[in-house]
């Protein structure tokens, strides 16, 4: 008999958001931790059910904003006061009120960039390959189906028991996902 490729985990498919949410809660209650759920649109309760709470995105954005703000003002201050001071229209070198608009714009720019790029980084995107795509029907996760996955590396994972457990949550089907 052919050698089976190493197992990544099990994937259960559900019809409705409510179903997958219920399943996720139970799995988490069961003590499974290497869980993930997949939905065609964001479901706040789902991530809570999986025990996800804090995210670092706001922090990244804050830091980006501070860098943009300070850097933006200093760039102008340096240019006008230290780097090449000039008498422009009789205005003082440090015409700080005139520097505010650019300071503001740079604050927003850097914050926004760090927000989006930070989100990608934390999500590990771009990710050209992921085992879950092996599941034949997983394409529907971006249309109208909801999935719950439990990875083989989970300490409580046991192929038979876990499949049994998942079947109890009356999914449409449960499939093994190879690496």
């Amino acid at each position, binding site marked *: 008999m052919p050698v089976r490729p190493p197992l990544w985990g099990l994937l259960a498919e559900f019809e409705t958001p409510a179903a997958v949410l219920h399943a996720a809660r139970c799995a988490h209650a069961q003590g499974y931790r290497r869980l993930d759920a997949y939905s065609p649109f964001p479901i706040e309760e789902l991530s809570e059910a999986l025990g996800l709470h804090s995210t670092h995105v706001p922090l990244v954005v804050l830091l980006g904003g501070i860098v943009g703000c300070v850097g933006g003002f200093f760039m102008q201050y340096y240019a006008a006061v230290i780097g090449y001071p000039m008498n422009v229209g009789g205005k003082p070198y440090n015409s700080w009120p005139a520097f505010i608009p650019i300071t503001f714009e740079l604050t927003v720019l850097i914050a926004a960039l760090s927000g989006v790029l930070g989100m990608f980084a934390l999500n590990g995107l771009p990710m050209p390959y992921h085992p879950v795509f092996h599941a034949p029907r997983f394409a529907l996760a971006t249309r109208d189906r909801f999935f719950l996955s439990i990875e083989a590396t989970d300490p409580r994972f046991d192929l038979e028991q876990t499949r049994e*457990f998942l079947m109890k949550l009356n999914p449409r089907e449960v499939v093994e996902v190879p690496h």
Partner: protein
Amino acid sequence: MAQETPQTKMHGAAGRTPPDTPPVITPGYTFGSMTDKVSSIVLTRPTSARWYIGFAIASSLFLVLAVSIGYLLAVGVGIWGVNIPVAWGFAITNFVWWIGIGHAGTLISAILLLLHQEWRTSINRFAEAMTIFAVACAGLFPLLHLGRPWFFFYLLPYPNTMGLWPQFRSPLVWDVFAVFTYLTVSLLFWYAGMIPDLATLRDRSQRRAGRVVYGILAMGWRGSARHWRRYEMAYLLLAGLATPLVVSVHTVVSFDFAVAQLPGWHSTIFPPYFVAGAIFSGFAMVLTLAIPLRALYGLEDFITTRHLQNMGKIMLTTGFMVSYGYMIEAFMAWYSDNRFEQYVQLNRALGPYWPMYWSLIACNVLAPQLLWFKRMRTSALALFIVAILVNVGMWLERYVIVVTSLHRDFLPSSWGMYSGTIWDWATFIGSIGMFVMLFLLFIRFLPMIAIFEMRSLLPQAELGTEPRGEAKPCP
């Protein structure tokens, strides 16, 4: 939220809307049918002859732009009508006009998001696209109107052997930063918002090319709950950042005028009244695009009369703000007892450019008054006409501000007249061609409606009525 019914949720704005308000999405759609309908425009449906005709026209106008730019670079800005005293003309008018149009996109996607206006969902995607293309058009003009465009980079802060920097007190440098930031953030917003739909297209696409391209663009998105969480957070913060940005950008643009001491420019009312004007013209442009679109692609179910009505209302409101701006300008001229200001105001209304002034009043002040009537707000045709009028009116407004203030300023000895040459017009019309061309490409190759956000508006998206926490017992 718990007691919320699908009906009310579907209407958004927590049921405050009267029961006879049309829904955001016509009932009867499922995740699947809705997804297929939108993605089919890109993936399966054959490209209509109308699209090809439109594209042919737009791209030939784009060629006109290319030729005008070529001639401009070869010969100089002298081919335009600009002179002394009117050293700014069409170019700056078009710049402000395009930038203004851009604002609606960001406003819809950011501010309305923060205000939980679900109805925005079906229009924000192409409104954002419109923003980006409009800003791209806008960006052209300040560049082209330079006497020596090939030295535009002198406006950027880069270390150089001369140790020279831009002159950061100049509103034009503020412009550079504002417009660049605006373009970047809008792009981020647009792209980030599109990733889940790109994933959908990747998974729905029948052709390998489609799978590869959309696959790359989707960056391997798989709708994981963890991702969704961070994604939602980032999108929300981005909206929070974009909101002050959209206000700041047109404020900065208005500084180009307000900071100068020219009578007719030097006015504190400019920032708010420019921002209002921007939103005004922006929504006019959204309608100008949305109304034909929904007809062409049969999207009446997603872009419903509800949307048209709301946009009509916003136009009516911002129209009033703009009118207030006109009023205050005149009032301050009288109240300030500044004879230069007073002359400029009189000269606008009664001077050589009176037809422009009065037609802008007609387009921006009178035309929107039609929107008081529900019949008008609900009739696509009426709205379309008003929207077109407002587009014209807002262009005229900028023209009047730029030209009439310059052509007769302090010293009568240097007064002069201005009018655009054929090259001014060619460049302007060409830029419209470029805008439409880009937009047609967008609706052909990218999802013009945010599918995943629409999904969450469908009744099926509800988590059922059982109280949270004690779900049905686990096995």
